[in-house]
């Protein structure tokens, strides 16, 4: 009987996570360091919320996607999340929008939003 209860609990937890994953934002990890983003092109789907899970070891970089009015300040040594919904398809610039040093202008990339 005890085994049955535990199995039921585990199944419930798994089902909860599956449901969350299916309906929640897509989660994408992105690390920023002086002077680059680890990923230069992020691909997401139009109309689906996305959560960027942002980390940095070295500076309060900014992460901004101006076309979707989305931005956040990163915190060295901590994880920061930015959730938004890209409502248009296309290729959009993301950048560090806090001046971080000699290579600041190189800290850019593209968010590619595809149709569903």
């Amino acid at each position, binding site marked *: 009987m005890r085994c049955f209860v535990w199995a039921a609990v585990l199944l419930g937890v798994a089902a909860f996570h599956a449901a969350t994953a299916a309906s929640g934002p897509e989660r994408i990890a992105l690390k920023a360091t002086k002077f680059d983003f680890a990923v230069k092109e992020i691909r997401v789907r139009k109309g689906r919320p996305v959560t960027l899970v942002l980390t940095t070891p070295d*500076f309060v970089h900014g992460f901004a996607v101006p076309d979707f009015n989305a931005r956040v300040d990163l915190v060295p040594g901590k994880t920061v999340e930015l959730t938004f919904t890209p409502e248009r398809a296309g290729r959009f610039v993301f950048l560090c929008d806090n001046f971080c040093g000699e290579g600041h*202008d190189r800290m850019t990339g593209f968010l590619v939003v595809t149709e569903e």
Partner: protein
Amino acid sequence: MDRRDFMKVAGLGGVVFASGLPGCASRGQPGGQSDFYFVQLSDVHWGYNNAKVNPEARGTLRKAVAAVNSLEEKPDFVVFTGDLTQTTDDPKVRRQRLAEFREQAAELRVPKVHFFAGEHDAALDRGAAYQEVIGGPLYYTFDHKGVHFIVLDNTSDPAPILGAGQIEWLKADLAKRKPDDAIVVLTHRPLFPLLPQWDWATRDGMAAVEALIPYRNVTVFYGHIHHEHHHRTGHIEHHAAKAVMFPLSPAGTMPQKTQLPWDPAQPYQGLGWRRIQASTSGGAPKLRELSLS
């Protein structure tokens, strides 16, 4: 400016930008004040080193200084609108570049030179080296022949902001002005969101613009974008100047912000400076765009 002087400027590659606002420039002010002109030099980036973009990197400031010194009619003053130096992560090198810039700027034979910082000078240490070497506050006002000049700092924080404290300071200063006072705002980044995708914006800049809106005779001069650009928010005109060191691609013409390569067939193309004829009687300033080529 007299005709002879204008023709000399035109021969150096000058282009006149006639403001769209009425009442440009040539009326006198009761009480003996007269119109005057000043020079805007911007984005010197002393210490920049990329021969593909500017193989004359140690010569263009000297060339600009010589051009200003050669004017028969001297400007009342010169203002450098930020990014005096190319940024460096080394505080010692930052101070050295600022000192070298200061030495060259001292060669200007004009009555007065005003300075303020760009993000390359000030963002990494909140203006400490700039204030140590160049001196003076990061934002300030001065008055000249009836025109009120306001220098705004949107570069000494790593974030492109003015900050709540400076905006309150601006509002307090404006509260002392009359609605028809002649006001010139000098700043480095655009106050309006020209192109945030290329870092060409001040996040809270429109708060400053809104504070300026009640004043009928306001013009903004700025740098940062390394090419001539003219924009209007309501009745307020915003004019970006060419750079002394290197040109950037005009807004939105390329997928990403790009330093334009040097063309040996047309050296110094895209580099320049600006003369501004200011009106003490409320008319819009009259601009003359000049080339270093």
